């Protein structure tokens, strides 16, 4: 599972468009993850300011799926 540092987040939607699983939505000023998240980590990497990170201890809760090429 992922967490968003809301003080750092600039609500730019880079993560929304990058997510291969349509697991992220921007509601106004809030980035929300849904149940489709598989912890692939693409959102961590694309976030220009580094506001997204795994919640420690939850990274292996879901099976790791391959990012579609």
């Amino acid at each position, binding site marked *: 599972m992922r967490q968003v540092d809301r003080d750092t987040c600039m609500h730019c939607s880079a993560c929304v*468009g*990058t997510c291969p699983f349509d697991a992220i939505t921007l509601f106004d000023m809030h980035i929300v993850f849904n149940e489709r998240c598989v912890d692939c980590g693409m959102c961590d990497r694309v976030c220009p*300011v580094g506001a997204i990170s795994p919640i420690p201890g939850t990274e292996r809760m879901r099976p790791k799926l391959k990012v579609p090429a």
Partner: protein
Amino acid sequence: MVEKHEYEVLVVGGGPGGSCAARAAASAGLKTLMIEKRQEIGTPVRCGEGIATAWLNQIGLKPGKEWIANEVDGARIFAPNEQYVTLDAAQAGNETGFVVERDMFDKFLAREAIRAGSDVWVKTNALSLIFEGGVPVGVNARKLNKDMEIRAPIIIAADGFESRVGLWAGIKTQLKPSDIEACLQYRLVGVDCDVRYNDFYIGENAAPGGYLWVFPKGPGEANVGIGVSLKKSPGIATAKTYLDAWIKRHPGYAKGKSIEDVAGAVSVSQPLKRTTANGVMLVGDAARLVDPLTGGGVANACISGQYAGEVAKSAWEAHDFSEKFLQLYERRWRAELEEQLMRNFMAKETLLKMSDETINKVVDALQGVTFTKVTTLEILKAVQAKYPEVVQEFEEMLAG
């Protein structure tokens, strides 16, 4: 209680592509609605604000004083060793031109859509497509605190990099890491910049797999931003790390103060294989029509938006909203834009593979060379004359 609304064309997204689509559809006499999830058209800005000028005329737009911050004479490309080559506007294929105020520019285009007769709703979020018999017939949306069904036989997806409508319609819009650039920009006041040029810095030290830009908004003020390839960003906040480091190394910019921070991402891919579905057309960034070399998306968004609006009219005349009919739109944008997009995609792929040393040699070889128009061939010729071994490296790259 779910509110119900009916339109002939629904445009999702209030950026340049959406406004141009709504303007074209409404001009053709169609009952058109454009929805934008943000509370204000044009903000937050998510762009370097450099746009070319040649295309404006093509879709009947006139430059407006209120949205032009600065008009530049050309571009300077800085190699990793910061030796540079200057391209005037004609040489750069008119890819340079205005540095704009994007918030004002987007509002200008939205006004054009409204003047043409389109409805515009802000703070209205598209949540999902409504399907009937497997065909999209509208969207479920939320406007302020009200849920609503907005029905329209034609939905134009102008929802930008996020592009969710296309995904809901079954179009594969996902991008590979090598086709995504993470971007960050500061609008710096109190800097030493040359207002005559848009500057581009390339190389691993400046911006891995992308470039760093300085677009002057006026004397002493510039957008200083960066795009880094996701493929070359295994860590966290790569864009910010590299941008901050570059600014620190350049005292003329380090003394500037930011009055606006801009974040975002942009696709630098080939255009989508498929940009239509039954009742749906994707335009602009949503269709991945961003120029893969420059990362510029505004011109192609406006042009494709215009085409989609015009094709919506034809579809209504034929009363045919099938994917097969809407492919008329796809054929039009491909005829106009695809060749350039593919060429620049190849150029980007080549640039991604070039070492800093090679880029230094290319820029060095171009010193004192005058071209009428910059093409890959012209560049290769100049490089061949000074560094034949580099041209061989290119040939191997292109072959392999």
